[in-house]
């Protein structure tokens, strides 16, 4: 031993005493190990590896010694070999490149050719064990035959290992399964219990991938079920039946007796009892007496003082809930008690069960209980509770809520939790309820007034998905339903323009300003414009110099509107107020998120074909760090930029689109606006090609219920109120669907899933016996073929992705063109140029109105939207709409051009500029 600098014991002892200079000690030890591992003496080498394993356990890297491990593995001395196998177990990963070098050593050891002595089986055992842990595709393919040959070994010690090792091999290399399946099946009735148990284990894992393949094993398994006394094995057998019996009702019926037998036997292990109950629930959901028996047993579990049993009982209860929700509701008392349990595992399980137990009568009680818990919960549990409250209340399309006023108040209570997350969820609920339940709006508007006036909410908890998100909903509701404010309009305006608001996230500020406009219009209608203008102008300066592009733009826009209003209101030729009113006159309705998908493609419209010549692939090097194709400072700001002369209109359009995207991305990321906008000037945009769109299909979107046959949609909600003045409980559950939608089976998504599915599930075992007979050697396809196909498939997939990308780009283009068109139409025939401004912006306003729900928008906004999204699998609609608005503005040949300029000028600190710009434009328009 003297040749080592340190033995393992020395190392451990040294480490324990050198607690302060641990890292120094370890780097010293590591150095020695590196020397020792190069030694020609394998005893030294393996001792070094042993020490390395210990250090690895403490978190130090040992991947550098992989090759040395392989060296020692092929040693003949058992002591060293064993260390090498242990090291491989610990250190090798799927990416270890030397792993292929181990093939021969493992094969030799498995077949026991090294030693004929008594140690051979332990060497083989070690090797199989290691193979199971480090198994890669290559190893599985090369060694599958060897391992299968061990199934006939005379020693159970080897047989059980070989059987268990088969599963990782099948997983990595599924073709190995069919030829060896019959042998595996024989092992189910092996005389040695641990061997049979191992075979059952492997069958269980296989059955998880594709249960149907293993129905043929039912007789053998049934035999084990009725005769075996080995609980470990019985648990697994019962589990297999839980997977395969639902596929075969006759088999399920035969299981009743043995399973109930286990459940009724009192001295059985809990693990087996639990498994039997689970299988009963899965296989015999309609057998009432069996389910009742299970429920009685589960009740004793949940009622048990032992929290392990309690947990188990709740776990199984969740299974029952899937098949017999009513059965769970009977045990409501017990489950509610579990909500107070100290153990979070138990509480979480009990929470999961709540959704099966709520009713109209106990919803308020249960929610009250959850609210009590929020006060004492830590933040992650708090988030779970908030989510749960919302989920429980919105169950079955809110049918358990008897008083929406109560629900609004509950949501408001949630916003008062300090530091709580899940604000977006609350925001969404507030909007949804206020929009869909007309009768609650006056109450809701009233409550929202308090919310926006709450100083805590707007200054604390400013975080992503924090409760400040509720302000978004509050501002929107107050603005949209300002006619219900009943004299509190000015107060609302003051709250919306409070100086604290500037610390809120930009999207909330933007909504605030939008709703300031709505409030102003509402006040102007009632001849109180002067008061409103005073309040707004007093406070707006906080926003016109905002660092957020979106906020600043809207604030400047508001300034301009007020200016125009003051100027034009007395002009009898124009009806400015009526035009402004048009912005808010249309009622916002819910649109089904699936609506775009359901629109029938107009004849002759091919969204996949290019409208113009496709652009060459983008070269990422073309762009500088700002994402622009050129250096901004090279171009004079007067907008004369030479590149345009050489570019086709399409190219310029493409580039402009990119700029818009970058701008948008930056505004989302709260970035500062670019210096001089990259020398970009909207007046240089040449005419962008337009596309003719047939509009006839979209003129009057009918209001269709999603399912007219559903009784819920036919009868009104019961009118039961708890001391709330609001009269009715009508909830509008309809979503607007566009003309010509059809209910389609969404089979498209499934097919994609099939491709991803574990290939082990696709193995066909119907001819397994024939396969086994026909081959003595292992039928292994050549290495090259498998890899070839693999890489090919990858290649194809890559191309598909590319195509998809192209399509996306194209779609963007079309949206842009359409936007332009709308803009032009707005201008056409209008006597005054300024009309273009509010009009064009309307798309933008609406776009933002739509954002809270993500699926709402004015029919007008929607019209283009639906088309823009055609063929897009899932509507991510907020974003395209935003784009559209922006683009619409940009493309307008007249009238609106002042806008982009307006916000470019503003960041320079010239607040007066927006005023002048549009006015100038208006003149031009005339």
């Amino acid at each position, binding site marked *: 031993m003297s040749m080592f600098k340190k033995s393992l014991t020395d190392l*451990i002892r040294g480490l324990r005493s050198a607690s302060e200079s641990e890292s120094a000690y370890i780097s010293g030890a590591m150095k020695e190990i590196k020397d020792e591992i190069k030694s020609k003496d394998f005893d030294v080498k393996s001792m070094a590896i042993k020490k390395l394993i210990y250090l690895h*356990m*403490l978190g130090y890297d040992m991947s550098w010694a992989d090759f040395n491990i392989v060296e020692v593995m092929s040693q003949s001395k058992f002591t060293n070999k064993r260390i090498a196998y242990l090291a491989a177990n610990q250190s090798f990963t799927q990416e270890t490149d030397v792993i292929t070098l181990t093939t021969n050593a493992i094969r030799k050891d498995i077949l026991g050719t090294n030693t004929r002595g008594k140690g051979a089986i332990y060497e083989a055992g070690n090797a199989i064990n290691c193979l199971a842990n480090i198994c890669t595709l290559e190893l599985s393919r090369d060694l599958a035959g060897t391992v299968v040959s061990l199934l006939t070994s005379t020693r159970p010690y080897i047989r059980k290992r070989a059987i268990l*090792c088969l*599963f990782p091999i099948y997983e990595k290399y599924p073709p190995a399964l069919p030829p060896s399946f019959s042998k595996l099946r024989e092992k189910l009735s092996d005389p040695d219990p641990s061997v049979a148990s191992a075979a059952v284990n492997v069958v269980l894992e296989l059955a998880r991938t594709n249960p149907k393949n293993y129905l043929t094993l039912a007789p053998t398994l049934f035999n084990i079920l009725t005769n075996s006394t080995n*609980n470990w094995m019985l648990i697994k057998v019962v589990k297999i039946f839980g997977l395969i019996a639902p596929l075969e009702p006759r088999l399920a019926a035969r299981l009743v007796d043995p399973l109930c037998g286990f459940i009724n036997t009192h001295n059985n292990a*809990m693990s087996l009892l639990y498994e039997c109950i689970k299988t009963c629930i899965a296989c015999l959901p309609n057998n009432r007496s069996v389910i009742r028996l299970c429920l009685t047993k589960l009740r004793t579990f949940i009622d048990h003082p032992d929290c392990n049993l309690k947990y*188990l009982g709740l776990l199984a209860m969740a299974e029952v809930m899937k098949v017999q929700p009513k059965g769970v509701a009977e045990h409501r008392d017990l489950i509610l008690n579990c909500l107070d349990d100290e153990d979070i595992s138990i509480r*979480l399980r009990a929470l999961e069960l709540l959704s099966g137990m709520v009713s109209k009568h106990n919803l308020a009680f249960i929610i009250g209980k959850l609210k009590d818990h929020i006060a004492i919960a830590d933040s992650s549990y708090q988030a779970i509770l908030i989510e749960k409250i919302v989920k429980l209340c919105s169950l079955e399309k809110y049918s358990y809520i008897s008083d929406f006023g109560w629900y609004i108040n509950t949501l408001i209570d949630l916003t008062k939790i300090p530091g709580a997350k899940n604000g977006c969820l609350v925001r969404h609920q507030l909007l949804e309820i206020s929009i869909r339940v007309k009768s609650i709006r006056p109450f809701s508007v009233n409550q929202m007034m308090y919310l926006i006036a709450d100083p805590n909410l707007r200054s604390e908890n400013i975080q992503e998905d924090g409760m400040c998100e509720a302000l978004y909903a509050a501002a929107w509701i107050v603005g949209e339903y300002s006619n219900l404010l009943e004299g509190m309009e000015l107060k609302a305006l003051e709250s919306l323009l409070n100086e604290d608001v500037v610390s809120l996230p930009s999207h909330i500020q933007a909504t605030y300003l939008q709703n300031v406009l709505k409030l102003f219009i509402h006040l102007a209608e009632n001849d109180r414009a002067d008061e409103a203008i005073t309040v707004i102008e007093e406070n707006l300066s906080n926003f016109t110099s905002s660092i957020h592009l979106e906020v600043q733009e809207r604030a400047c826009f508001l300034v301009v509107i007020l200016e125009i209003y003051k100027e034009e209101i007395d002009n009898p030729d124009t009806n400015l107020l009526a035009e402004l009113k048009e912005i808010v006159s249309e009622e916002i309705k819910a649109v089904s998120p699936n609506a775009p998908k359901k629109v029938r493609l107009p004849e002759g419209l091919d969204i996949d074909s290019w409208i113009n010549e496709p652009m060459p692939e983008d070269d990422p090097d073309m762009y500088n760090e700002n994402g622009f194709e050129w250096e901004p400072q090279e171009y004079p700001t007067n907008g004369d930029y030479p590149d345009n002369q050489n570019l086709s209109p399409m190219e310029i359009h493409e580039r402009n689109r990119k700029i818009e995207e970058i701008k948008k991305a930056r505004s989302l990321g709260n970035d500062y606006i670019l210096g001089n906008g990259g020398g970009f000037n909207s007046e240089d945009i040449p005419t962008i090609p337009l596309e003719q769109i047939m509009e006839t299909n979209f003129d009057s979107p009918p209001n269709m219920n999603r399912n007219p046959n559903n009784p819920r949609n036919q009868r009104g909600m019961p009118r039961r109120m708890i001391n709330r003045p609001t009269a009715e409980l009508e909830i509008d559950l309809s979503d607007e669907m566009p003309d010509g939608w059809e209910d389609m089976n969404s089979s498209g998504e499934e097919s994609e899933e099939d491709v991803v599915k574990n290939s082990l599930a696709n193995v066909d075992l119907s001819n397994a016996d024939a396969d086994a007979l026909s081959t003595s050697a292992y039928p292994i396809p050549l290495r090259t073929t498998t890899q070839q196909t693999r890489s090919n498939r990858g290649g194809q997939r890559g191309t598909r992705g590319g195509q998809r990308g192209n399509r996306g780009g194209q779609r963007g283009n079309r949206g842009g063109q359409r936007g332009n068109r709308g803009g032009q139409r707005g201008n056409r025939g209008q006597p005054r140029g300024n009309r273009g401004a509010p009009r064009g912006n309307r798309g933008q306003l609406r776009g933002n109105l739509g954002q809270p729900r993500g699926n709402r928008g004015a029919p007008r906004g929607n019209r283009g939207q639906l088309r823009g999204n055609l063929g897009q699998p899932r509507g991510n609609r907020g974003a395209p709409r935003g784009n559209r608005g922006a683009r619409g503005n940009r493309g307008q040949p007249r009238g609106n051009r002042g806008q982009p300029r307006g916000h470019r000028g503003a960041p320079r600190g010239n607040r007066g500029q927006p005023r002048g710009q549009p006015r100038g434009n208006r003149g031009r328009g005339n």
Partner: protein
Amino acid sequence: KGTMIHFLLVINKTGFLRCGRWFVPITDQEKRDIVVELHRIVFTRDIVGNLSNFAEYRNETLVYKRFASLFFCACIEKQDNIFSTLESLQVLVDVLDTYFNGVCELDLIVNFFRVYMILDEIFLAGEIMETDKKKILQRVLETDKLVE
């Protein structure tokens, strides 16, 4: 992730890994993270006391049991039987206890390779292979003889 047990760890009270077998491919960095997270979960649960031996961890179930200063933890698939896993941990501890004649943490540190050997006699490829304590011990002792 097809195996029943994804990984089996022995962690001491201060968060040091004393023995760890990973039955699913995981990178070294993830392993370190998991050890830290697991220790936090079981340690805080242990302080509260009188809790169940099960916790939810990521998308899996964590089954653990404390013996003196050591936590024996197994991470299994959600649908697997948590009680039988707990019992298999008991088997492991019983065998260790008999083998070392009253096992303590220092035994596991100094003889870590023997611990792995015993572990490999009970578990293989993430499945419980052998639960007969006598058989396991006999095999381990026979292997010991070969080493000398």
